């Protein structure tokens, strides 16, 4: 219940998010990993705001992180759907049109 425990949770969450992003080939799953990473960052902000500073700026930052995550998810998933309409798959390896 100290700052350490929250930071450890946040670190583990970040690493898991990274692993999800690297190891999955489904684009939606990669977006899931991004959500985990953003949440780890937001958790850090709130934890610091509680233990380090005496104001609630950290809460406001987490709020904006959540807002940006929503916008990111909306646009990202729209791109995934468009990609599926064109390629009939959401395998990340198929996204090769910009190569060469």
């Amino acid at each position, binding site marked *: 219940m100290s700052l350490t425990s929250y930071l450890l*949770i946040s670190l583990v969450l970040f690493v*898991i998010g990274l692993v999800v992003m690297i190891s999955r080939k489904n684009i939606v799953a990669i977006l899931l990993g991004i959500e985990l990473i953003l*949440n780890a960052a937001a958790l850090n902000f709130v934890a610091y705001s509680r233990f380090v500073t005496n104001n609630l700026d950290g809460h*406001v930052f*987490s*709020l904006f992180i*959540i807002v940006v995550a929503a916008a990111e998810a909306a646009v990202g998933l729209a791109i995934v759907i468009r990609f599926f309409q064109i390629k009939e798959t959401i395998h990340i390896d198929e996204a090769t049109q910009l190569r060469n």
Partner: protein
Amino acid sequence: MFVQLLFLLSASLTIGCAIAVAVTKNIMHSCIFLLGSLIGIAGLYATLGADFVAVTQIMVYVGGIVILMLFAVMLTGGKDFVSRAQNLLGLAPSMGNKWTYGVGLSVGLVFLLTNVKLILSISEYFPEKKFGNEFPSTVTQIGHLLVKDHVLAFELSSVLLLGALVGAAIIARPRKQ
């Protein structure tokens, strides 16, 4: 006592579901485990006394983003994709091969260990604070911060959301073939 229990419950829910997201083959199940992980994080926020952020987390993620992801999974083939999905144990890293995977893992391990060392010493500098019994409402303070200190970010976030709405609607809109 209760707060410790809540913390343990939320932390185990968060980490357990996050690991499940990484190792589940089925993308639909992954989304649901992500939901569990996000609810766990909301519980962690609650133990930090951040009630407004906790509820916002539930409102935006559970009510919005997860449903959007479930829709997107359905729109991109749903279950059909499962057989082709790669999981962590399938040993098919999307970037590089097994060799780069191993190097990355060892580097990550070193990174992790140094970070853990760093983090473990941090609570000596920032000892645990006791909550006072009368607690000012975070809602009021966040409201004041939003209209005073962070008013530009507040207004710009609406523009950001408008941009996201327009952009995503253009991208996702069904087209005449």
